């Protein structure tokens, strides 16, 4: 919207951890600075305007200009985003950054252009690992018969099945009580689930198997970005990229704090895990993705960015 020579962009997001919120605010600050106050960002935080799926639709129609959602929420809109749900797609954080900061993600970002919105940048959402009520997970057999909450995604369900667990898809609002009442034996998420969602009050063992790294994606309405004058458009892209760098930094710091808090306040035990047997167990999923039309290229590109691969020179 234009108000006396000033363009105001509406940025709506769902509930988020503090570092992500700070980074979205940083985006607005940078954009205003770069455009000498000609472009301002107005925020609608904490699911005020709806959940992630709704927010994407609102961005699609232009009711809001910007939103930030999990990459997994985008799977429903574009098949391309489903690649991020593939367990052990990335070897580690460095591999993840190498891919996400390269041009590999560009076709993914643009795959929703026809729907009326595109990806602008990504925010690190950390790694997802298993956390359990009764004990650590050091090998796949520790998950045998355990009821593990997963997000409503076919890939996540298959992953837990391949590891021997019993996947229980459930909306996030019921997880805490279900862990507490023993309907669930565990769940999988990043460290903030322990502190911010309070799951650490019930689940005392967090095992770093690091099965997935699903980035958050900042989306912008296609018409909005196209209608901006060239220098403003450039400022949007720059502010987005710089806010990503900022986010990586504050995210790491916040994870360390969450970990310390979990250990002190909740008495959580963190343990490292040998990932090899986990990677082997989910290999069938890699076969599946490798042969999917439209994902094959991206999969290969991502593989090339592994440590020691040819593409990573």
């Amino acid at each position, binding site marked *: 919207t234009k108000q006396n020579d000033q363009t105001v962009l509406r940025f709506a997001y769902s509930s988020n951890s503090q570092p992500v919120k700070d980074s979205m605010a940083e985006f607005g600050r940078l954009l205003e600075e770069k455009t000498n106050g000609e472009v301002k960002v107005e925020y609608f935080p904490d699911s005020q305007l709806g959940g992630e799926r709704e927010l994407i639709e609102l961005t699609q*129609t232009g009711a809001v200009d910007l939103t930030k959602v999990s990459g997994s929420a985008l799977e429903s809109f574009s098949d391309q985003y489903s690649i991020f749900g593939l367990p052990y797609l990335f070897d580690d954080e460095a591999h993840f950054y190498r891919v996400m900061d390269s041009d590999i993600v560009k076709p993914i970002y643009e795959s929703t252009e026809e729907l009326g919105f595109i990806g602008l940048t990504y925010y690190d959402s950390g790694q997802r690992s298993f956390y359990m009520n009764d004990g650590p997970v050091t090998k796949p057999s520790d998950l045998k018969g355990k009821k593990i909450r997963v997000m409503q995604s076919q890939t996540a369900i298959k992953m837990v099945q391949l590891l021997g667990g019993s996947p229980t898809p459930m909306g996030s609002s019921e997880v*805490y009580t279900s862990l507490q009442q023993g309907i669930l034996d565990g769940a999988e998420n990043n460290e903030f689930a322990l502190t911010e969602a309070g799951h650490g009050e019930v689940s005392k063992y967090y095992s770093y198997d690091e099965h997935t790294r699903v980035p958050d994606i900042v989306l912008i309405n296609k018409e909005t970005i196209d209608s901006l004058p060239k220098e403003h458009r450039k400022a949007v892209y720059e502010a987005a990229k710089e806010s990503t760098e900022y986010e990586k930094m504050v995210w790491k710091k916040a994870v360390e704090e969450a970990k310390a808090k979990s250990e002190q306040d909740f008495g959580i035990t963190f343990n490292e895990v040998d990932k090899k047997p986990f990677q082997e167990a989910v290999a069938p999923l890699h076969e599946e993705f490798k042969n999917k039309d439209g994902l094959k290229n991206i999969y290969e590109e991502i593989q090339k960015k592994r440590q020691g691969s040819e593409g990573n020179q």
Partner: protein
Amino acid sequence: MVIQSSLILFGVFAVLMAIGIPIAISIAAASLTTTLLLLPFDVSVFTSAQKMVTSLDSFSLIAVPFFVLSGIIMNNGGIAIKLVNLARLLGGRIPGSLSHTNIMGNMLFGSISGSAIAASTAIGGVMVPLQEKEGYGKTFSAAVNIASAPTGMLIPPSSAFIIYSLISGGTSIAALFMGGYVVGILWGLATMAVAFIIAKKRNYPVAPRVTAKEAGKIIVEAIPSILLIVIVIGGILTGIFTAIEASAVCVIYSLFLALIYYKSITLKDMPNILIQAMQMTGVIMFLIAASSGMSFVMAFTGLPDAISNAVLGVSDNKFVILLIITVILLFIGTFMDIAPAILIFTPIFLPIAQNLGIDPVHFGLFFVFNLCIGTITPPVGTGLFVGASVGGVKVEQVIKPLIPFYIAIIAILLLITFVPQVSLFLPNMFGL
């Protein structure tokens, strides 16, 4: 912009509602009108449509039609009279015993059917004529029935708490249910205290003593119905099923009772029961769908922040702010139905409350309690209207005898609002 759009929003809403347009349509039309100020026509219309659908896209809400259905099955199952007998046994020797029977009957039946309207119709329908026969004042009997009916909305299962849990971002339903017992029973005790004083003053009769044998028979007959409460709450607390899944178990159990155990309905009655439940679901869900459009518009115009700043600007004293919120909610309740009020005002008041360090479970309990009072106050109160017609009196006649009950209930409201330990002790005891 905030002031202009909220004037339009509430102005259009009030006018449409006053002339008799269904509340859901009034809310939706007012929301769309306001959205049109901010967004182009086709985007506004899409947004209204989207909100109607997505607001119902929630697993928690499944519990609403299921509890409605099991309530209707129980209502048709002739179990009201068995609960009345039990309540009579429990309240038998207290002065004004028939009034206490009515109150406890409403609490028991409400805890099973989840509906204040069903309770006041089923229990009041039996009790009000009985009280009249024994010389209790007609308007007094109706007032007792009206004043105690909302306990059924607080004592679980309770759709109101499910809607609140949903809109507040997943507050534990199990904790709200346990707290719901406390506040619902307190409400019931407050009305019993008032009935006791009035009955004593007017020398209303005490029921004759019941023999042990009769008492045993009454208890045995009521056990299968009461067992529903045990199954639902026990199942939730032991982790066999979630509070939402409990609603489906409720349907199966009430079907078992009505079809097989009491044989009070046959399979032939089922279509009609399902149609009734479908209609009630349609009414409630349509209201929810429309109201979420209004919360969207309010968030879009920044109204929650504006109200929150205004309230916090008045004072930074926790008690003063809580008192302001209490009074505003009591006012809202006088004209607004409970489900839309929860949907529209949770996003405004919960953040303020959390700012003051109030637990979301505690907030949910006094918030819903407060709005429940609105269902029995003039000018608009479904509980008031239905209760008056069940009691065969005019709404105007029943207001005066209701006043002492209002005072007692508001006293309890203040107690649970300002002393969190009262409503939270049960949830805390179960570690929820």
